[in-house]
């Protein structure tokens, strides 16, 4: 006996508890099974790239904060590296170390948010999320010490950072480094062997190696599929070539691998932070000769960095003026999102949100 069924189309989002912002999907499903997903983006489009064309190079830093608003430090970093290459500025060593510390802290915070919300999409009643946010809170407090803001940092400037870290920053960072491994252990005890998490995430939303490479997916999503590609290692920017760290790689590329890869990367970031503290030396945080109004020569530059979400790069074209002639952002969230349909077809409705959460997109970055 076969039941006659017919597919139903339903709008998920842009206002929905687990679309991580204002993402919209037109989901066609048959019973509980997903037949088709059509992502609709653009609800958070603010024209950041266009706005950058009429702002000076320093002012654009504030725009980059608002692209990926859970990882502003790495956005700043990517943009500043691009400007430095464009204008031929050699940054001060202390400034570089400081922005590496900031970027790694931001990576931990971003991964904590990603994993927390992934588990929240699984339906945990906010508990793991709040444990993760508790750790993120400490990082944000450190950011407040560094630059006076918690999310929209604008900490970096061409040539380094705008101001040296205050005295109370270093004890706070050391305390964090001592505490954090235990906290991650706690999270792992709660989640990585949790049978419900395992059966919900394993073999769901599988991305094969070649699919990833074809769609130019980067970041933890790519590494979870088993491709050893980390720009900090393959194309070191800042002083990452002086630092030793390992890259966690997944096997299958399912949601659980992506979850675990992020947890392991948090541990690796802690290692990097320790090495940064060892290597940092006193000195100016940005060279004196860099003017407030940077005026790079004609040309273009693109420096990709490994942001928490993947390869993030600012393509800047200068016409010799005080503001970029053209600014284009290679946003990892947008590109990682391209395979969403392939990942969820044939799965259940509940898996759609988990898979979507495991990609860790940020709508501010997708729509820009």
């Amino acid at each position, binding site marked *: 006996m076969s039941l006659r069924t017919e597919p139903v189309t339903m709008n998920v989002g842009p206002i929905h508890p687990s679309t991580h912002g204002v993402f919209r999907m037109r989901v066609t499903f048959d019973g*509980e099974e997903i037949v088709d997903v059509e992502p609709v983006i653009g609800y958070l489009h603010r024209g950041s790239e266009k706005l950058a064309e009429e702002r000076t190079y320093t002012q654009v830093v504030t725009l980059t904060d608002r692209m990926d608003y859970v990882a502003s430090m790495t956005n700043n970093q990517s943009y500043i590296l691009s400007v430095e290459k464009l204008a031929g500025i050699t940054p001060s060593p202390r400034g570089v170390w400081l922005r590496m510390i900031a970027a790694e802290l931001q990576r931990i915070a971003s991964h904590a948010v990603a994993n927390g919300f992934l588990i929240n999409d699984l339906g*945990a009643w906010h508990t793991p999320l709040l444990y993760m946010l508790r750790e993120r809170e400490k990082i944000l407090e450190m950011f407040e010490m560094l630059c006076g803001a918690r999310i929209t940092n604008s900490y970096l400037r061409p040539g380094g950072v705008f101001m040296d870290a205050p005295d109370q920053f270093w004890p706070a960072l050391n305390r964090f480094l001592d505490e954090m491994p235990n906290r991650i252990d706690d999270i792992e005890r709660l989640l990585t062997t949790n049978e419900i998490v395992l*059966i919900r995430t394993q073999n769901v939303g599988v991305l094969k190696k070649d699919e990833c490479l074809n769609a130019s997916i980067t970041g933890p999503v790519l590494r979870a599929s088993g491709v050893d590609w980390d720009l900090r290692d393959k194309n070191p920017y800042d002083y990452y070539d002086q630092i030793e760290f390992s890259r966690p*790689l997944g*096997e299958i590329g399912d949601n659980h691998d992506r979850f675990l890869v992020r947890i392991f990367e948090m541990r690796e970031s802690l290692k990097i932070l320790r090495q940064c503290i060892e290597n940092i030396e006193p000195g100016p945080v940005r060279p004196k000769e860099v003017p407030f109004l940077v005026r790079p020569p004609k040309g273009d530059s693109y420096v990709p960095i490994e942001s928490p979400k993947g390869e993030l790069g600012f393509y800047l074209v200068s016409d010799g003026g005080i503001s970029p002639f053209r600014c284009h952002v290679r946003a990892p969230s947008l590109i990682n999102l391209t395979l969403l349909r392939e990942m969820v077809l044939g799965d259940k409705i509940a898996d759609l949100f988990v898979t979507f959460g495991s990609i860790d997109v940020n709508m501010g970055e997708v729509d820009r």
Partner: protein
Amino acid sequence: MNTVLDSVVFKFIYCMLVSSDECANSFKIIGSGFISEKYAIIGFLITAFFLIFIIVNGALVGVLALIWGERRLVGRFQARLGPNRWGPWGIFTPVADAIKVMFKEDISPTLSDKFVFILAPILMVVPVLMIFAVIPFGEATFLTDLNVGVLFVLAITSTNTLSVLMAGWGSGNRYGIIGGLRAVAMLLSYEIPMALAAVGVILMAGSLSIIQVIESQVIPYAIFQPLGFLTFLIASTAELNRSPFDITEAESELIAGYMTEYSSMKFGLFYLGEFMATIASSAIIVCLFLGGWKGPEILPSHFWFMIKWILMICVFIWFRATFPRLRVDQIMELAWKGLFELTLINILSIAILMLIWPDPSITELWIMTGIKWIVFFVSLWIFGKLLGPKPLQKNGVARKIVLQK
């Protein structure tokens, strides 16, 4: 009428109203009431009304307390404080919630089926209130002692399936329909393990009356038949639509499932029904498995019942604070491939043990308990192997991550 008069509270109020010989014998202090024995039925009705009034309002207050307690406790589980602004320790927060819910605009969507839409929340609350009728809150303190109490509870709880389906269908919303249909599938499936787990209890007690079940518990059945307790606990969590089985509401998937289109007091009724069901279901678990009002005689029986009851509710809150949600097909799998068989094993083992020791003494009871625990671990291990997550590696840890140097 006579079974009802076994209840001390009932008899007390009844005797204040009606003058009868029986009353004069049992309560010498009060003496006899003003209604003559000829019209005893009037006194009986007034007493019943009075008691129902107490129980309904008690349940409402219980719901308010539970809302507050749940939010506070979940807050503490999540390393935060929970509501603490409105009144000392935030105890007036549910009152504020209730006022807010009552004054909200009552919206019924254009596409909704009005009759079904309005009927659904009412059907959610009424059956749950009826469960309280058969719960003994302490020694000889109950509204009525039904001789088919357990069956009554199981039957009444299953009616909220209908309410959920009506709400989902009537609201004319696709989220609602998915929620409603999920609810039907899940609630119907979990009726069976729930009933079968109760059969284990009934076999031991030899009666369907809840009072009899409590009185037969020399060792609480939670210890005596862990398999039955576990399955009943899981099944009733599912029946309550609570995490990890809250697929019918599924905040992160279906927004609010069948309640998506409801607002104002209609939503409030759903909320009420759900929390009341949690209270009632905890009471049922306490009665069937934790020995009801029984306890050392330091405290009166009512206190023992209260303590166990609150602890049971806390366990539900603890579950909610810890577990992620299961997927629809996994929930079905758990019900039909896991709990159903486990309850059958439970019944079978009890039946065999009762054949061996038809009239067990205390030592024999403890031996039976030991055997039951062995059965519990063995069967759980086997079912974990069969149903558990497949790629578990050594030490039960799924480490597949390679660190690339």
